[in-house]
């Protein structure tokens, strides 16, 4: 039975199918929630938040007569498990965005990541003054000169903290090509910075 048929049975109220849905996917969903929270919260907070998000997410899937579950269409062969992963990610991060007033954005976990990194917010001020109170705003022009692909690369690598091996999926290319792309971008920036009197030391 395909994912769509299976889901249709759940939506139509077949208890056995719903039992299978819960057994098959609840552990997956809970694991994804914990995976996200581990990057964002202090360990003692993870379980409580995970439980709240898990319960809220299941209710979100089924409320209004399965409104959310009905949006799954298996387009282009998308599997139910992969779709649920993305739904879980979106739901959990939206939850954290709502809560971010309440919890420390700066407290870092073992990976050196904090909630601010996980829920990147462009409204957060980023100081461009160095320790010597030097204004580096003139260097921003160098980013402007980059092409679209290069800007996207920096966005995902610098702003979203994606590793080079993780970028392979986004750019549909090999690891060697990703390494090469980073080198080219750095070279481009080095030249631009040099013109403006700065040495990019990478």
């Amino acid at each position, binding site marked *: 039975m395909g994912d769509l048929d299976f889901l249709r049975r759940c939506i139509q109220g077949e208890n056995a199918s719903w039992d299978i849905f819960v057994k098959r996917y609840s552990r997956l969903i*809970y694991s994804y929630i914990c995976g996200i929270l581990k990057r964002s919260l202090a360990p003692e907070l993870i379980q409580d938040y995970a439980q*709240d998000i898990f319960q809220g997410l299941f209710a979100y899937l089924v409320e*209004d007569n399965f409104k959310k579950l009905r949006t799954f269409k298996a387009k282009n062969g998308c599997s139910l498990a992969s779709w649920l992963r*993305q739904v879980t*990610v979106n739901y959990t991060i939206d939850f954290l965005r709502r809560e971010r007033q309440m919890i420390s954005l700066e407290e870092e976990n073992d990976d050196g990541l904090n909630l601010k990194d996980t829920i990147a917010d462009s409204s957060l001020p980023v100081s461009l003054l160095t320790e010597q109170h030097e204004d580096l705003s003139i260097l921003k022009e160098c980013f402007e000169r980059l092409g679209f692909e290069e800007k996207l690369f920096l966005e995902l690598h*610098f702003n979203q903290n994606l590793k080079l091996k*993780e970028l392979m999926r*986004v750019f549909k290319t090999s690891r060697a090509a990703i390494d090469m792309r980073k080198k080219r971008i750095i070279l481009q920036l080095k030249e631009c910075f040099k013109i403006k*009197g*700065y040495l990019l030391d990478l």
Partner: protein
Amino acid sequence: MRQINESLLKRLYKAWRADKPQSEGPHPDEEDWVDFIEGRLPAGDYERLKIHLLECSRCATNLATSLKLYNCPKVANPAELMLQTVYLKGDRSSRLIELLLKLRGKAIEIVRSNAEVVLGQNSVPFVVLRSQGIKIFKEEVVVTKVVSGNIIEIKVSNENGNYFNICLKLKKKKTPSITKEFRANLLKEGRELESYYSDSGIVSFLHLFPGSYVIELYQANRKISSIALEVGKWTPAIRH
């Protein structure tokens, strides 16, 4: 010549990025992002999503998080969560509010809750309060939870450590007005103990013994929420 290291380069990039306008939607749906990650999108859609990624921090963050979850280790979910999910199976339209309390003399301790605790003019998630060591309240606690466009307010008051009272109030989320008409059923061990229809926006259950209760809330014959309420009596640890 001044040197720029990788950390400073990142800060420079973020500052430049922060000045850029953000897309306000529409956002691609979850299936689009899965197909993007798994390389199944037609070329035109693939390019469209890449453009969106550069314009929308929200989607970029969600995509990056999803990519980081590949090969995420599986953890077992607690049995109680499975029970709640099973509960949803039989009652798919409602939301469960959990409230585990202990009566401590004239005070009340919140042991666990997925609701927010009212402190003055603010509501704070209990998990946050607990992380700061705040869990004991004088005589009464008020918690709230947003469910189906309503704010459910639950006030539990301690009556001399032996009994407790519950007062339920429904308010509309968008306006501060009270939702006057709703029904509240109090159940213990699956049996209905009391049931009240409110036409004033408030329902109270008084002089209850500690124990496990479920309160079901209905609006227009539709269940909007269930409150799992467990109240115990605090017993001091014995020192030998």
